[in-house]
């Protein structure tokens, strides 16, 4: 069995990839995927600790996060389709009318 630090390092790497993805991508789909990556990095840490400490709390949280992520993906993708219908683009930088 791998030690806790190994899981944390993997999760950290995944989270940083996800964060960088959110910050640099212009494509909304990829942005969503990056967010999923960050959520799953968090899930990985939860599961690792849950196993190590022999507590089921971490599992419960992970299921909650997965449910929320699924719901978010459904709503988010629906919004992306609507945005595309209206503006014929999914470049996030084009949706900037909410400003001063």
């Amino acid at each position, binding site marked *: 069995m791998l030690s806790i630090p190994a899981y944390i390092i993997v999760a950290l790497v995944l989270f940083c990839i996800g*964060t960088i993805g959110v910050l640099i991508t*212009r494509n909304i789909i990829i942005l969503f995927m990056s967010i999923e990556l960050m959520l799953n990095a968090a899930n990985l840490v939860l599961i690792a600790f849950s196993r190590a400490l022999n507590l089921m709390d971490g599992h419960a949280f992970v299921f909650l996060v997965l449910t929320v992520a699924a719901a978010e993906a459904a709503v988010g993708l629906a919004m992306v389709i609507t945005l595309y219908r209206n503006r014929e683009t999914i470049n*996030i*930088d084009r949706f*900037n*009318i*909410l*400003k001063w």
Partner: protein
Amino acid sequence: MSEYLFLVPLLPFIGFLINGLLLGRLPRPVVSFIACASVGLSFVIALLLFFDLKAMPADMRLIEQTLFTWIPAGSFHANIAYMLDPLSAVMILVVSGVGFVIHIYSVGYMHHDPCFGRYFTYMNLFTFAMLTLVLADNFLLMFVGWEGVGLCSYLLIGFWYEKKSAADAGKKAFIVNRIGDFGFLIGMFIIFWQIGSLDFQTVMAEAPHVFIAGGGLITAVCLLLFMGATGKSAQIPLFVWLPDAMEGPTPVSALIHAATMVTAGVYMIVRTNVLYMMAPDAMLVVAIIGVATAFFAATIGLAQNDIKRVLAYSTVSQLGYMFLACGVGAFTAGIFHLMTHAFFKALLFLGAGSVIHGMSNEQDMRYMGGLKKYMPITFWTMLIATLAISGIPGFSGFFSKDEILWKSFSSQFGHPVFWVLGVITAGLTAFYMFRLINMTFFGKGRMDDKTRKHLHEAPRSMTVPLIVLAVLSVVGGYVGLPHVFFGATNYFEHWMAPVLSGGQAASHALASGGGDTGTELGLMAASVLLVLIAIYFAYLLYNKSPERATSLREKLSGMHKMIVNKYYVDEIYGATIVRPLVYFSLFLWKVVDVVVIDGFINGLAGAYSDVSGYLRTSQTGRVRSYATVFVVGVVIVTAYFLFG
């Protein structure tokens, strides 16, 4: 009967309510009936109350009626309470009586006016306020009446408010009166501070124990109250509003600016005679101001061409006589002259109104002349009033004016200088009044043909009041015959005596009076002689040979110019008081308000707006930049918790 005292002021108030609330909904005959009947009924009740009072023993003549407590505040109580004593009895008879006659006259005079109802509404309100003023049993209620008449005066002077001069005159009257009212209020405060009550009887009873006779405080109180009187009664230095007040309808001038309201100051001084008797210095000031105003206004009256302005200056001058009387301690003489003046001056104004009515609203006497044959009733009644005001023996003005002159000579507060100035003023009065009569009724007509064709005697509703007042102008004086006339009884003095009992010692000294009968008759003869000479000169200059008047005017052109311009008093006030005030207000407006206050507020708002202008550029609307800030924030917070 005494329980109906409150009806005297209340009836005109009801008339005011009916006419005011149903303004424009009542036909004219109903409006005039309500207005006249309410004042007439009030006169009838006043008359009945007068006889009630007369039936009582002399030193118990007092009817009081407290309606309710108006302001109960700690130790301070102000009641709505009326008090009828010999003094207020005379006043309510004059106010409601002359007021009633003038109401009747107004029905004819205002016949053509589109605002008929509004006029009578104001007139009734005025009568109510004036009756409240003279019946009030405390200073505060009197002040309510005092301000009420001031308000009505303002409304009625500016009755034809479409005319700018009328609106301005109304404002002028109101503002000038404010200055006097300020003094009145301060005087009232001092009385309350020292005595703890504003009730007339309490104040008069307590004053000798509280104030030191001749002390600074009582003198200050009297002078402050007198300041109020100079405002309301148009004395130097606050007389400037009264001549301008002639912009109002003529019956208003007769009622408010001749017979009743302007005499409120005299009434107030007589009402508080106990206080004045304790302050000889204040009395001297009152007498000096009175005689100075009498003389000064009479000289201005010499050269006015507007018929109503002559009468206005004459009123100021006659009010000066009344103050002279009060100042020398002859309060009875002051009130006596107030009464006779109410008769003959109201008559003169109503006569002038009749002339103006007949002359198609022309007021300049230079365009009149020869009206005697067109309007005989107006002529004869006005002549009677003129004889009365000039002090021709047998007419009411003679008795009252002569009593004042005699008292100003013989009283312990009097001085021969007062008498000399008073007699000269009497001569001037006779001159300008006969100038008016000669210019208006004699000689040949100087009006244009259109006006001449229209000339007519006034309708019955106007001539009957003239005749009534003419009768009063003659017989009014016989209630106060001087003792020297075959030991006649001066009923008026006896009637007024209880009111003046507070200053008893002094009034006894007056009654016995210094000087002997021979001196009194001699001085009387001198004044009558001077008056007759003045009348002859007026006849000579304005009837027989008008060219002499012209040459005289040219010879004295410097003086004439000064008098025509009323000694530039309005201009002096304008330069020394009004204009600096205007500049100060401009400074407050343009500098303090616009620059300082607005500058601070707008500057603050501007600063916020500028700062937020810079800050809002950070709201780019780009999701990625928001996310970057968000991540940086999270990193900083996390770092803080981990390493901080």
